[in-house]
């Protein structure tokens, strides 16, 4: 038996990163090794491939059913594409906490965390490596869904500028869910607690925001005085009728060819139609309005809102052309409508004419997703930081019921 021959010189390695106290493990070298440890473990477990296969089958079923329902209808590609994205986001949010919340509590229970902590790794490197490993794993689910996205794109009407944005933001949302899971995992002593807590926080974003938004309607309830809309130069208003219900001319004579006359009026009406060209009547009546412009921000941190709201929307030919609107675009337009608030609820409030806006026209509403993404990043970063404090050694205060090794 002979012992080692290699002597380690502390400053041989390590570019960049922390160089405190002569130790020689660069930040990315350390985080990268943790990443490798995690990924290799995962890549070699059978369960992982079973999960990916199940995922592939389920997304293929969803896309296939959608395609079958729509037949070969034109303009369906966008709907199918957004459906796949929404689905990947929904199930990704279910998978990400499971992938990430056990990474550190599992190591704690298995006795490997203390071994990592006893090397030159800093808590930040451990967290970073584990987070990246969980994120990359969750991106594998997005990757497996790519065939369905391509399938949707073969319909030819997918609005291309929206594709990279939707895919990228979905990936970012999965990263945030993983960060939440890893942060909570570092904080908790028991694997089960970490997984449940991570699910609850992700559910708070996905479902909780919608519930809170719904409940807050009571707080933004108000009344407004509405009046009727008057369309002054509607040619139909000038048409006069006799007692028999026949149209008459200015002299009270019955017009001979009623049908031709009505057709003429109708043509004039359509030609002159202008949605903005009305005035508000003088008689007011009290109506209930909801000032959703005050509570829409509650929806901001919802992952679906963030992804949908960030995507550019296909320009429409006409204001009321909803054809081919996918689920993500629908989410976005609901949110924008809600942002406009009470003013958009009635065209005549307090006898004052409100500007009529087309639902898909985003002008005049501020994008909500930067706020939402910001809230999510702050939440995830806060959890990671509090987890990092928990991983610091030598441990001063040991959490109840947890042990080091």
């Amino acid at each position: 038996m002979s012992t080692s021959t290699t002597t380690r010189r502390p400053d041989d390695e390590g570019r960049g990163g922390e160089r405190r106290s002569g130790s020689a493990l660069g930040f990315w070298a350390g985080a990268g090794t943790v990443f490798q440890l995690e990924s290799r473990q995962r890549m070699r477990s059978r369960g992982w491939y079973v999960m990916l296969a199940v995922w592939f089958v389920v997304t293929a079923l969803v896309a296939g059913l959608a395609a079958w329902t729509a037949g070969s209808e034109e303009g369906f590609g966008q709907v199918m594409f957004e459906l796949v994205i929404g689905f990947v986001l929904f199930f990704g949010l279910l998978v990400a906490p499971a992938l990430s919340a056990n990474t550190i509590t599992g190591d704690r229970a298995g006795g490997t965390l203390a071994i990592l902590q006893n090397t030159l790794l800093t808590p930040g490197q451990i967290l970073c490596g584990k987070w990246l490993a969980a994120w990359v794993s969750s991106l594998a689910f997005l990757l497996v869904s790519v065939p369905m996205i391509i399938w949707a794109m073969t319909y030819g009407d997918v609005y291309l500028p929206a594709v990279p944005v939707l895919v990228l933001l979905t990936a970012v949302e999965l990263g945030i869910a993983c960060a939440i899971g890893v942060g909570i995992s570092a904080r908790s002593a028991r694997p089960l607690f970490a997984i449940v807590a991570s699910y609850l926080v992700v559910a708070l974003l996905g479902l909780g925001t919608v519930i809170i938004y719904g409940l807050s309607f009571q707080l933004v309830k108000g009344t407004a005085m509405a009046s009727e809309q008057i369309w002054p130069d509607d040619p139909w208003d000038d048409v006069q009728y006799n007692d028999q219900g026949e149209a008459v001319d200015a002299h009270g004579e019955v017009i001979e060819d009623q049908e031709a006359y009505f057709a003429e009026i109708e043509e004039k009406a359509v030609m002159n139609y202008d949605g903005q060209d009305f005035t508000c009547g003088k008689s007011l009546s009290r109506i209930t309005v909801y000032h959703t412009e005050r509570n829409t921000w509650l929806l901001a941190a919802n992952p679906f809102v963030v992804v949908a709201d960030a995507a550019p929307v296909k320009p429409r030919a006409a204001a009321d052309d909803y054809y081919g609107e996918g689920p993500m675009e629908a989410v976005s337009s609901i949110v924008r409508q809600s942002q406009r608030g009470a003013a958009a609820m009635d065209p005549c409030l307090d006898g004052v004419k409100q500007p009529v806006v087309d639902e898909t026209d985003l002008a005049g509403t501020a994008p909500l997703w930067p706020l939402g993404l910001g809230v999510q990043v702050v939440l995830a970063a806060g959890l990671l930081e509090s987890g990092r404090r928990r991983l610091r050694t030598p441990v001063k205060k040991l959490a109840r019921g947890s042990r080091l090794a």
Partner: protein
Amino acid sequence: MGIQETQYDGGAPARTPEAGTGVVAIGLARSFGTVRAVEAMDFTARPGEVTALIGPNGSGKTTLLLMLSSLLAPDSGSISICGINPVDDPRAARARLGWMPDTLGVWEELTVHEILAMMGRLYGASKADAAARAHELLKLVKLDEFASRPARVLSRGQQQKLSLARALVNDPQVLLLDEPASGLDPGARIELRTLLRELAGRGRTVVVSSHVLAELDEMADRAVFVAAGRTVSEQRVDDAGTRGRRYAIEALDREALTDALEHAGIEFTLPAGTRRAAAVVLLGSEAEAAALLRQLVAAGVAVVAFAPAAGILEESYLRAVTTSSDPSTRPTPAEEPRP
């Protein structure tokens, strides 16, 4: 008992290694909530020696090792690992430390070689260096045939060897081993002993905690005894022979033996429940033992066995543990020592 031993109640250790080498811990205390795992421990381990850490279950051995390994901060007291305070600069201490925990943690899906190579990289080694070092260590602990097998197929003893190899990955100056021999077969125990002696011979500081005292007799240069969260005594294993030791004497005729002992004026006990005619006596030194044996033979007692009743460390251990658990000899802070 009439035997001199260093008794500790929080004072400085009798002999400390040169500044900047080995392990020195003074006045350590650590509680977990209301449980006071370590109350007052001093611990010294010198380079070039194997120091045994001995104590009953729950005496605070593992807590002490966690503090020495820079994972746990003491509530009070100071630690020096090669002159570095692990609380102030844990990374510098870890570069010089190898720690083998009492729990076995392995990355089950990774191969044995991968685990060691990854660990090497976590100490800043390059990919090639870490891989070479991993091979070297696997040979050293005789796990090379398992290099490409996943860690989950290893037996407990093999995992123990892997854990030892892992602790050696950064070629540490200070090696802290918590129960390294548990789960090892007799052959592997002998290998472990040889390896640790060799490391000590190369100037490393080796600390071993164990329950298997007979094994430490052969391996350790010094022993530190702990009980109920306190260091109760510290001694060199070579010196242990000069301290009180119990000998078991067997003779063909029991009465002849007891008569001769009474005649010699030596106190003895006759352990109940043994088939043989044996007496146990407490003797101050090996010279005394030799004299007694000569006397017995001269008196015509047919002696068939005359040997230490237990291993050196077992002897010291029993003495240390019984002394510390006897409330009258444990100083309590509220009480002034009796004049």
